[in-house]
């Protein structure tokens, strides 16, 4: 029984890792948003498969909320921001898409090496959780710094948030549900505020290239 859930879990984590790598190479923003939705759904399912002591009502409740937010509400919201703007593609990022995927492989290696040095405190159901979580935590800031479009930077932030969520699963056994909900709510509001910001930037600049936001210096 345990080994079956373990297999499922490893499969899930490998898929998470793949969404990350594909995201690094994706140039169409709509494609990126769909990947983020898939990542959110996989992430929400993670604690259900990882539970060692069977399912509890609280766990299911949190999983439903996580999937609802990360796989449905966030992508819907990002799609709306995308439709409002002109840009559909990340055409000319600071780091090219092929180079980004290669950088992703380097980050994956770094994450694997790092995770070997960190003790896993939470339920250690799979050896892969920690490397995948660290991989996402590294990918997020990389996307934010290497992309021009404001929307791509938001995608990077979501990946970072997802990484934190997975990291939390391994590092803590039982976070009080209220804290967990507060964190999810924060992620939601952060996205809401960023989406609204993109909307305003669109109206003011007729574009959402964050790299043209460079008049303030010194």
């Amino acid at each position: 029984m345990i080994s079956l859930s373990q297999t499922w879990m490893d499969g899930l984590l490998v898929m998470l890792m793949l969404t990350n790598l594909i995201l690094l190479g994706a140039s169409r923003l709509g494609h990126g948003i769909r990947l983020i939705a898939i990542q959110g759904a996989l992430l929400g399912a993670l604690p259900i498969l990882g539970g060692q002591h069977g399912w509890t009502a609280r766990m299911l409740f949190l999983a439903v909320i996580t999937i609802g937010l990360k796989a449905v509400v966030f992508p819907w919201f990002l799609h709306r921001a995308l439709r409002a703007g002109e840009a559909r593609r990340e055409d000319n990022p600071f780091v090219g898409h092929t180079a980004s995927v290669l950088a992703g492989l380097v980050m994956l290696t770094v994450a694997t090496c790092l995770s070997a040095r960190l003790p896993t405190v939470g339920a250690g159901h799979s050896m892969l959780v920690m490397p995948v979580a660290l991989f996402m935590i590294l990918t997020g800031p990389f996307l934010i710094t290497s992309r021009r479009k404001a929307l791509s930077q938001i995608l990077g932030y979501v990946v970072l948030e997802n990484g934190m969520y997975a990291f939390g699963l391994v590092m803590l056994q039982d976070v009080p549900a209220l804290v967990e909900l507060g964190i999810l709510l924060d992620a939601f509001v952060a996205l809401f505020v960023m989406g609204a910001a993109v909307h305003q930037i669109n109206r003011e600049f007729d574009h959402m290239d964050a790299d043209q936001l460079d008049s303030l210096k010194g």
Partner: protein
Amino acid sequence: MGQTLLPILVALPFAAAVVCLLLPTSQSVLQFVRLGVLGLVFPFALAICKVLSHGPLEAAGQWLRMDALSAYHLAVMMLVFVGGSCFSPVYFRKDIEEDHFSISRARRFGSLWFGALGAMTLVLSSNNLGILWVGVEASTLLTAFLICIHRTPASLEAMWKYLIICSVGVAFAFMGTLLAGASASGRLPATEALLWTHMMEIAPRLDPMLIKAGFIFLLVGYGTKAGLAPMHSWLPDAHSQAPAPVSALFSGFLLNSAFYCVLRYIPIVETALGHSGWSLRLLVFFGLLSILVSSAFMVMQKDLKRLLAYSTVEHIGIMAVGVGLGSAGAAASLFHLLNHSLGKTLAFLSAGRVGQLAGTNEIARLGGLLRGSFVWGVGLFWALLILSGVAPFAVFFSELQTLKAAADQGSWWTMGLFLFGVGVVFLAILRHAIHLAWAPSNRDVSANSSSWLEKIVVLCPLALLFMLGIWMPESLQRVIREAAAIIVMGGRQ
């Protein structure tokens, strides 16, 4: 008493934020902001007095807690909010006359203003380190749109930088929180793993590797929002583009609320590592770096509000160095927090008004302020001098105490670099201040008339800073000592 008082304190500002959304005119929103904040002073003062006379208040199953350290920060926060709120109707009057401050904009300003107050109250009164983080994140998101109340390309740029850089920073702080929580796992029941008081109790048995890793993330994360160099890149943009009351709020307290979170972790980390001084050395390093980096930018600075923003980086650096120097330094740092918040609030409010009257923030094009707009010119000139550390004002004495703490510790390198940085800042500000006060200028900065309220907003902080420079009340000394003891020893004498 604390059982009901603390939740009410957190809830009241949010209730006021909702009221702001229902008011009919811009004028009424601004009046409500002013009266509402003045009204909130009473419950806040009550809580602060209770803490100082009867010891820490606790509520909501120990999730909320207020001790001397948080009460002291709360008092400083209220000073900044009262100053900013009294000033807002003066500052936005011109915008209302020119129809640049519509009712939707006024409602947004009012509700976010109170929302920021509520979020920071949550930060200061939470005993749960997870809730502490939620409060910081909430205050980041709530204040983002305050920067672009006047929607210009530059203000949107500043808002976007603030939002992205601080969100990533705060996300790193979250990782630090998780690592700190993990360092207690197995030693505390899972539901209590993030309670500050419980962490303090078992601090000697925390996993040293995890708490060290956690503190690095926390320092970088919260330090980003506190404006410590080299994570300060968002700060000059946001401070210079925001409307004056908002800049005052950012510089006067928003940064300190993030720095407060770092302060909360110091006794835990130091106790866990057997008081080796590891985290204190890190603070001294980042503090000195902030002082030196900001001093370089201040010498070259051409924009008045950016000059004040870099001065904020410098002063946060001074506070970090102070805390890093042990108990005498921590007390000096807390005293400096009060002085800086008062001085910087005055400086940003005056600079905002002067900039509004002159139509520019460029230092080269401003001048002759002491003749032109008397009240605000005087306010700006003295605020600049105070921030540069001129005696006999209080900022000078808190910097002197920090220096003395460094000398007592025998850390000569710290002393030398500190003196060098502060000296450069002094000369840079003095040069700009003299230019602003006496240089000939063709810009007309004379206000038609200054109301009594404007005079009070300028005179009160000046008088307070002068008084604190020559005489410090016994009760204030006691509060600062108690708060410093919490930073150093977690509150145990």
